């Protein structure tokens, strides 16, 4: 499953898509991979809620603060 997604991603990279479509698709696919690993490999789906709260908290915090920080100095996330 993960292998297939990676293959699709690389294939997409070589297709002549518009940049926005490419970015969108790639982000969606890697988010899917991310979720697969986290939820099943790391058992977050079946484990204590506390763990997912902590981990998601960390991710959300990181994305949130750096989105704001970059936007004030003219950077872009993607």
């Amino acid at each position, binding site marked *: 499953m*993960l*292998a297939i997604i*990676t293959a699709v*991603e*690389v294939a*997409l*990279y*070589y297709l002549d898509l518009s*940049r926005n479509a*490419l*970015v969108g698709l*790639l*982000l969606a*696919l*890697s988010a899917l*991979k*991310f979720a697969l*690993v*986290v939820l*099943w*490999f*790391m058992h977050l789906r079946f484990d*204590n809620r*506390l*763990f997912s709260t*902590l*981990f998601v*908290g*960390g*991710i959300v*915090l*990181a*994305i949130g*603060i*750096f989105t704001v*920080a*970059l936007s004030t*100095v003219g*950077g*872009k*996330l*993607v």
Partner: protein
Amino acid sequence: MATSTGVDNRKLFMWLFLASECLFFGSLIAAYLLYRGQHGVPCMDGDLSTCVFPTDRTINGVEYEGIFDIPFTSVSAFVLLMSSVSMVLALAAIQRGNVRAMRIWLFTTAALGALFVGGQAFEFTEFYREGLTLETNLFGTTFYVLTGFHGAHVTIGVLVLFSLLIWSSRGKIQAKDSLNIELAGLYWHFVDIVWIVIFTLIYLIQP
């Protein structure tokens, strides 16, 4: 030991550590993203200090060659993903009490991890030969430091896995000790998902 929340101390520690690592890699990635828009000058004479494209791209009909070797790195990424699969199998084996299978899968995981690190060392050497160093430009600076820190994490993971292998060869890891493998696995998977993010944001998405 009974705990107030019912979860094991060490496992809680590991998740806290991973949550904290999100900020660590978040900071590194943010620095890369801030600067990636700033090295978009076309490479006319191959002078890497004024330009460099992470990836191939076309500007006004002219094709410029990027520095990334996407097929090679895709294979590396695949290797790391597969090591996550073998890590899951190692944990499943020890939870069933099958120490031998656990050792085989643990070794597979460590070997795949080492292969990934080797691939990264090869990639760094190639880039270095093409003239891209830490000093060359912002791309060199941010790229090497970000992927280098990730590589260091993988290396530490490989060391941990080998230590566990040695430990288990002395008969110290039984089904009741599966938590050790689980914790190593959590760390390993985390390093893997960080690579998923890096691979997509840095290698596949063009500036």
